[in-house]
């Protein structure tokens, strides 16, 4: 029951955040500066998720060789093709290969 209560509470809170922000801004013509700030903040958040989801390394804030190689491969492929499947397959393959070689 405790776990269920926590899930339901978190669900309600998360929905309130999602729907609340939509409701708060859907009918408002925001100033161009605010619009730009929102759009760029969202891009920054998504880009930061690339880093925060990297496999942990021994050095805090560090990026392992396999991760770095995989990221470079992902960036190069993503610039050339819009297909996320291709990007992910190539990047993960490069990551796994580098990890196997370098350790």
């Amino acid at each position, binding site marked *: 029951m405790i776990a269920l209560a926590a899930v339901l509470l978190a669900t309600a809170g998360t929905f309130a955040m999602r729907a609340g922000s939509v409701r708060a*801004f859907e009918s408002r013509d925001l100033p161009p500066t605010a619009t730009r700030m929102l759009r760029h903040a*969202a891009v920054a958040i998504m880009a930061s998720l690339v880093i925060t*989801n990297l496999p942990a390394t021994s050095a805090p804030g560090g990026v392992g060789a396999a991760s770095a190689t995989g990221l470079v491969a992902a960036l190069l492929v993503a610039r050339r093709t819009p297909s996320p499947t291709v990007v992910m397959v190539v990047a993960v393959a490069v990551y796994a290969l580098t990890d196997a070689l370098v350790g």
Partner: protein
Amino acid sequence: MAAASVPGASSGPIAAESHAVGHGTPAPEQVAPGIGSTTGGREPGTSRGQEVPMSDSTAGTTGTADTTARPARLDAHGVRDAGALAAAIAPLGLAMGVALGELAGPHLVSWLSAPLLLAGASQLVLFSQLDGGASVLAATGAALLVNSRFVVYGAALAPRFAGQPGWFRLLGPHYIVDQTYGLVAARFRDDPTRQEFRRYFMTASTLLWALWTASVGAGLLIGTALPESLPLEFVLSAMFVALVVPGIRARSEAWAAAAGVAVALAGAGTMPTLLGVVAAGGAVGALSGRARS
């Protein structure tokens, strides 16, 4: 499996393939015609089942609300984009299910968190906190902190929800996650109609929601039978690269992405880091406007 070792520990569950439509030549520094646009989008007027084109000037946020549309038809682009992300979502969901299965809580409740919360990171944080003996309020608070970034996505997507049918305005926000936001950002380069946005958003996000729910459930059932040699720990980062890079249309957006990466490298995935990322991205947006003017 330790919570920290689970891939996708700091992200939402699901994400995107950009289409040919979404990859036209971008107009540098134009106010985003899709996300963040202050216009609500065009919507074909509907009159007794017959669609009548509605001019842009009358279909903005103050345009006539579309209350007659039906949610039944699937969007081909949405199906294709969601399918392209299945390669990442399914294994991540499996891994998430395995991880949740090793933490406190009945499996049924752990599984329920997938369709209800629809946010992998917060699911993991919630059950990790409970497993560590935290109270319901403390665990919920931690999960909500992780999900606070959805406020930014919701605000950026808000103009697209204006004038939409009630069912969509009620249900749609539930699907706002990193991946659906990234999908929409990459997909809509020009100003879509309300119907186009609605059908695409609901198709893609519902498919991803179903896939996430099913794969987390499978992970709970399979348990530790999932081979540990699979390099799942890198899939999510690769997926976000695939989402972010095609969506970058202007130099200022590239700077915003770089700022987000820099702040994330300097921090440790904490709340101050998230605020720093938002502040850095917002500052780049404000500065780009000044430079233009």
